[in-house]
């Protein structure tokens, strides 16, 4: 499980329309908001970073959203799993890329 906090910036007048849009994302919780300043703090709980990216794309695509930026990510459980050998990261693509450069 990956937990990410993010700052969502929006135009304060569009708050009413924005709220249901945020709530349509089940992985996203609203933690803090300063409507006058047009900022909301979200915490997103996802299984992996691919899922996180999908959510980010969704927010950035909306015209109600001025900006969506990650602040911090907690990988606690995933790090434990990595150390225990449950997950393996595939570094092959990176190695190939390096080979290409040398040519």
């Amino acid at each position, binding site marked *: *499980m990956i937990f990410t*906090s993010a700052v969502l910036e929006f135009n304060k007048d569009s708050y009413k329309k924005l709220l249901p849009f945020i709530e349509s994302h089940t992985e996203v919780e609203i*933690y*803090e908001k300063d409507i006058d300043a047009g900022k909301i703090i979200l*915490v997103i709980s996802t299984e992996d970073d691919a899922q996180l990216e999908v959510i980010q794309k969704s927010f950035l695509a909306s015209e109600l959203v001025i900006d969506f930026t990650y602040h911090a990510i*907690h990988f606690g459980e995933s790090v434990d799993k990595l150390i225990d050998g449950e997950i393996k990261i595939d570094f092959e693509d990176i190695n190939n890329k390096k080979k290409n450069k040398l040519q």
Partner: protein
Amino acid sequence: MEMSRRNFIKSTLAASAAVAAGISTSSNAVAQSQEVVIERWVKGVCRLCGTGCSVYVGVKGGRLVAMKGNVESMTNTRGYLCVKGMNIWKVAHHPDRLTRPLIRDGKGVLRPASWDQALTLIEKKFKQFHKKYGYDSVAYYGSGQCTTEESYTFNKLWKGGFGSNMVDGNPRLCMASAVAGYMSSLGSDEPAGAYADIEKSETIFLVGSNLSEAHPILFRRVARHKKDNPNVKIIVCEPRKTLTSAVADLWMPSLPGTDLAIFNGMAREIIKNNWHDKNYVKTLGRVTIGDGSKELSWADYVKHLEKYTPQYVERKTGCPAADVKAAAKMFAKSKATLSMWCMGLNQRANGVWANNLIHNLHVITGNYGKPGADAFSLTGQPNACGGVRETGSLAHLLPGARPVANKKWREFVEGYWGVAKYSINPSKAINPKPGMHAVKLFSSLGGEKDKTKPVKAVIMSTTNPAQTLPNVNKFIGGMQDAFTVVIDIFPTRTAQCASVVLPAAFLYEKGGVFGCSERRSFLTDKAVNAPGEAKADIWIASQIAKRMGLTKLIGWANETNIDRMNELAWTDYIGCTANTEKTLKGATYSRLKKSTVGVQWPCPDEKNPGTYKRYVRGMDPIFDNPKRYGYTIPAGAKEFFYARPHGKANIFLRDDPDNSEQTSPAYPFIMTTGRVLEQWHTGSMTMRIPETAAAHPHSFVEINEKDANRLKIKNGDIVKVESVRGYNILPVKIVNNTLEGVIFVPMHDQKADRMVNFICSDIVDPKSAEPDYKVSAVKITKVSGPKKIDGRYLVSRQEMNKKTFS
């Protein structure tokens, strides 16, 4: 992952993001809850500076666990506290607390002993020395951090019981010049006004004081007053740009030791522009010189000031001529001007004159008596005023702060105390000759074999002269050779020199009265018991009184309850001074017990609310019955300095001599010393509190960027700062907004090679005998590049057995 941990992580992530995004967060509720449940809050004052903040200490399970400000306070209004006051309760239960009497054996090791053993030894030595070397061979050195009841008891014991005026205290090192300044200019010690003048003033002149770090709660009041009233002007005059300058409208630099020229220069400017109050000068001013006996004319004064042109002042002090003019205008043209000063003016070769010159400015502009106007000397210690000045616990004074040389007053006190009946001195009288002031006392202290040292024994409390005396190398040997008794709560450098160490009770373990800078006495109740066998000073004084045959003189000596002892001592004291202008007769012990605001003297009876402003009819009760106090006040006089003949304050002709230590090619820098916010005095308490120790774990030397470049010194380098007397090894801190040629070293470090008083000048003011800590000539040499410093140094129980300081 369990739910609570998950939620905690999410909350923390969100809070962090919120801070970064600059919005507030309510998720902090996870940590914001009352940590500790308090059983009861006990009323008292803060143990530290002369502001006199009143507090409540929180007690749980017989221990101090918290502190909060008293919201009804007249001093720390709205109950604010500074970081030291907030944490000082942590001292009480520290593991380093001294809990048993210690006696140094033949091998120099301090061994635990019983109270009976320690007191028997003290009794034996005192009696032996009294017989062999005279009653003046045994001294008491007290402190502005002892309670009034304790200081009064020891003072009475010595002056009334032993017939010896060998009583002095550490206020000699901080307030003596202010005392002499008030006595010579206004006729009576201590301010005419009060802190309430802050909120009524239009111009505030802060000089010789780093208010933001030395009296932070008063600084808060000044800053708030300015914030709420933008027309208020603040002038800050100092030798280094401190945090106090943040509120200055006008910042005036002055080389250490030279500011007398500035004050004379301002006076010249005021008179030249006709900004002075001619009527006030005529009715309430008197021009004089020297000891004040000879009256001179206004023309003499004006002529004397001619030399102090703005250009002369600029050349002498480094303060721009335009600033002198601007300061003069702000001072004189405001509706009410309040000056506040502290050690910058007092700890000087001509400290008394510096005080006189500030009073001059107030007299010539009529800035006394009206709301917001006063020449207010800030006191450093919490009870230098109440405990030492007002009880007369200095070598030349008696209770009521009147001189021992004053025959009439001396005879009154002799009668009140029953000296003729009870004294063990065959003279059966109070000695008319003053005893020795602090520096002279410690210069004269030594072993029996040393015939040049007439003082063979000293008992001292709540003070650390082996670290605080100037040119301290000179005095350590004498303290080690003499019979030295030290009363304290922690190991200190002075305890390291002692023959006997007695464990003391902390303020909240004994209770007692403290009187702060604004003449306000406030009672602290006992909140918890002292650890181990630690005892209150008043109990120790009583045991000595009993053993020396003085239980009739010290009537509370046979009591066992400390609160009862305190009450009897206090009642005796206010009875003694009831007919002086410092009367606290109306501040009975029961009234002080109930009061949450304390009482400002003069307060002649219980109905009187206390006095905000002295010397003004309708506000000062002395006007209602001046004869009772030995004064004469004309019926029509609205304002009158009744302690001066004819009620006129003195305007002194004072020069600006170069009596401080002068720089030379060999010692080209001026070193000045001072405080930092988080530490108190020699750090024996604040270096044991984690927060304050961390904020300032060791001393440093502040050097101007240009000077550092010339010496090829970088930030963090280790240098040797040396005078003709001694040296320190200190890390460098480069600053770029202070005067070239001036360096600053704080006073709090107890590590031997960082104790600044090894370097400090021991020139003293000729009138007050207060040392010139503010000006020493030094040289700086680089020792090495940056190195890790062993900070938070504390004299340990083990180190107390060693002769040398490490």
